[in-house]
């Protein structure tokens, strides 16, 4: 028998540790032949995970590359990219969760130009590429994938509970009053479920949804900024009415207890478990539910964004299609990475994208032919009718991006104020919203001052669009 003394034990332990270290350092074998180029792809689209994994495998064969797709949770994605960039390990292609304007990203070498033949670009609908948003000096840097015609606050509901409460799934509530009455019907059932839930623990989503509600309630602007004058007006009546409406629903006991802590995923999962009848959410609700509770999909139904009063029209405004995918500035093979992005413009990819039932594809007509459920088609049909192109300062004057990069975060944000008001921590709602408007105005002024000092030709006038007309796609003069 071999005697194990301390020295032998330490020596053997060291050898094992060294072997483990060397094994860990050895690159993982992908099964691809030696010399096959590697392409790393990161994104944050939860409903598209499986589709993107499959697409990566298919394109690996087509492009003769070893493409690895990694999903990152949206809330952690920017942090992951920040750390990857600092350690020079950015993936070859990645989805856009960075808060910086395109010009700053190009200047900081976060991006490589996407080399894509014009015929491939032409597969996407006209107006998909915008100078200052996806392109810079005519060069393509960001690939748009999703339509700008969408919003985050469709009135999704559980068909089964609705039927029990006597709510006709074919004519869902359209106004604040109708929704309030529907909630009362559900509550009166005492069926062990709440009338509705909201992701009140996610201030970012609350902000997005209240921006939608304010537009549907008559606010002629986006994210607190009035199109015609370029002034911040979060304290506008449309915002106040929308938040007061939610407060009333909360105080009436219609909102599922615990919603104040829910992230979007929590709220959607609870709703899909039958805990509540209504759940305001974006089009991605369908794909999200299918991922977490496939057996709940037949229960899905929706109505459009609520309007404040009967007779008024829902009109929503969004900016140009954003840049969803980038090629990294440090990619060893930007041409190959561009080829992968080029594959995203093909009809097969667009159909798969629609089938994921996340954000609708940039060509909304693809949805009708894709393998999607009827409620998803229905929600996309609302978007086609009611969402219009908003004017954007950065599109009219790309130098605004210099000011955007000098902007500093404001706190508390709209979502925080909503959470505070519903929870009773804020009592003067209008005052808190006025402070929010003032904080944004002050930040914009300092950013413009800084940008001017850097030589950018920008001013407050760049944010005003006196020629903007409601109910139309804005066309730049």
């Amino acid at each position, binding site marked *: 028998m071999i005697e194990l003394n301390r020295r032998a034990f330490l020596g053997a332990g060291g050898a094992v540790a060294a072997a483990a270290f060397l094994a860990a350092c050895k690159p993982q074998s992908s099964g691809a032949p030696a010399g096959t180029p590697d392409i790393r792809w990161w994104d944050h689209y939860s409903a598209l995970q499986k589709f993107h994994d499959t697409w990566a495998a298919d394109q690996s064969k087509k492009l003769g590359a070893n493409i690895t797709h990694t999903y990152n949770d949206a809330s952690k994605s920017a942090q992951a990219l920040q750390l990857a960039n600092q350690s020079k390990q950015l993936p070859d292609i990645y989805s856009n969760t960075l808060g910086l304007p395109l010009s700053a990203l190009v200047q900081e070498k976060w991006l490589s130009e996407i080399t894509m033949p014009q015929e491939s670009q032409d597969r996407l609908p006209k107006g998909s590429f915008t100078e200052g948003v996806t392109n810079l000096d005519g060069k393509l840097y960001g690939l748009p994938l999703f339509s700008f015609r969408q919003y985050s606050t469709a009135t999704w509901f559980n068909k089964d509970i609705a039927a029990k409460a006597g709510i006709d799934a074919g004519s869902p509530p359209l106004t604040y009053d109708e929704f309030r009455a529907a909630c009362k019907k559900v509550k009166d059932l005492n069926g062990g479920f709440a009338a509705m839930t909201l992701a009140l*623990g996610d201030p970012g989503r609350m902000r997005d949804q209240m921006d939608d509600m304010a537009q549907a309630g008559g606010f002629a602007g986006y994210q607190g900024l009035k199109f015609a004058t370029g002034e911040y007006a979060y304290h506008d009546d449309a915002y106040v009415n929308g938040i007061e409406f939610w407060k009333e629903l909360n105080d009436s006991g219609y909102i599922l207890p615990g919603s104040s802590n829910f992230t979007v995923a929590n709220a959607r999962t609870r709703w899909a478990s039958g805990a509540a009848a209504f759940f305001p959410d974006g089009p991605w609700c369908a794909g999200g539910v299918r991922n977490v509770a496939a057996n709940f999909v037949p229960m899905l139904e929706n109505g459009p964004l609520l309007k404040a009063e009967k007779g008024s029209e829902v009109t929503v405004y969004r900016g140009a299609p954003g840049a969803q995918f980038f090629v990294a500035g440090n990619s060893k093979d930007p041409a190959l990475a561009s080829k992968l992005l080029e594959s995203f413009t093909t009809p097969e990819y667009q159909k798969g994208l629609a089938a994921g039932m996340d954000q609708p594809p940039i060509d909304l007509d693809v949805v009708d032919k894709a393998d999607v459920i009827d409620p998803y088609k229905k929600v996309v049909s609302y978007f086609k009718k009611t969402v219009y192109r908003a004017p954007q300062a950065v599109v009219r004057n790309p130098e605004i991006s210099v000011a955007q990069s000098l902007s500093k975060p404001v706190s508390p944000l709209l979502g925080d104020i909503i959470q505070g008001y519903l929870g009773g921590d804020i009592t003067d709602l209008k005052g808190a919203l006025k402070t929010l408007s003032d904080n944004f105005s002050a930040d914009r002024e300092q950013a413009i001052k800084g940008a001017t000092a850097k030589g950018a030709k920008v001013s407050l006038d760049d944010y005003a669009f006196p020629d903007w007309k409601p109910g139309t796609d804005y066309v730049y003069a």
Partner: protein
Amino acid sequence: MSTTTAKAALQGARQDPKAGAYRGPTRTKMERRRNLWIWLFLLPTVVLYGLYSIYPIIASYWYSLVQWNGFESEQTFVGISNYEAVLADPAFWSSVRITLIFMLLVAPARILLSLVLAVVLNSPKLPFSKLFRTVFFLPVVTTTAIVGVVMQFIFDPSSGPINAALRAVGLDGVNFLGDSSSALFTVSAVYVWKFFGITMIYWIAALQTISSDVYEAAKIDGAGAVQIFRFITLPLLKPFLIIISLLTIEDTFRAFDLMLTMTGGGPFFSTEIIEIYIYRWAFAASIPQLGFASAAAVLFGLFVFVVGLIQLWGVYAARRIQAENK
């Protein structure tokens, strides 16, 4: 060479002045070899501690003097303006206040509860005392983030077992984590449950330094359990009380993982301790403010450093008391 022979050789070398030339290299060689081993074993700790503790501390001092968002390479030197901005931010002072309230809630509870439990578990008459010690210590070794997530379910107002129990006895449910008036207290209670096991171990170790002869003598003199605790145990534990209190207080400043997973600092910033405030500006902002967050981190670090100094003084005072007791 056997140990005895080596010792004799060394002694001989010490006695023989002519052997100086021989003695030096042998001792130096042995010491060098020993030092080499010491440094070899220390190396991983030194390297890892340097990389993951010392370097970030030094780097955060630099970052606190620049304006930098982490996305751009440009770091503009702004002097102390980040410090001025942090000190002028009411949310920073709110987070300081919440951190101190949290400390005041959890530190005394941890120290006192664990002392009581340690006294009970230290009793030789208690059966299964080792089992109980393990059970009470178990939450300490559980991953904090997982505890936080599980506690969200436990305190859930609609389907959590605590609210179900409240409703079963005819009481109204409580939104423990969703109400700003109860969220901090709820996290504090979970924190005490999660970490009091470690304080309990400190107390048990301290209790075991007290000789059983002292207790027996007290019993012969007719002292009861309360009198023994009041006049024997407590005075002898005084030096330990200082050290354990300071260790526990310092420990309460590290509640980031539990707070983030249970409340994320909400609702409406009501549980935003300084660590969450720093995290919010460094990583959760739309455009991260690493300079600003670093300034807040440095201020927090200085605060903890002051507590550490008090701790050093406490250790010194404890030793003095111990010496006086002897």
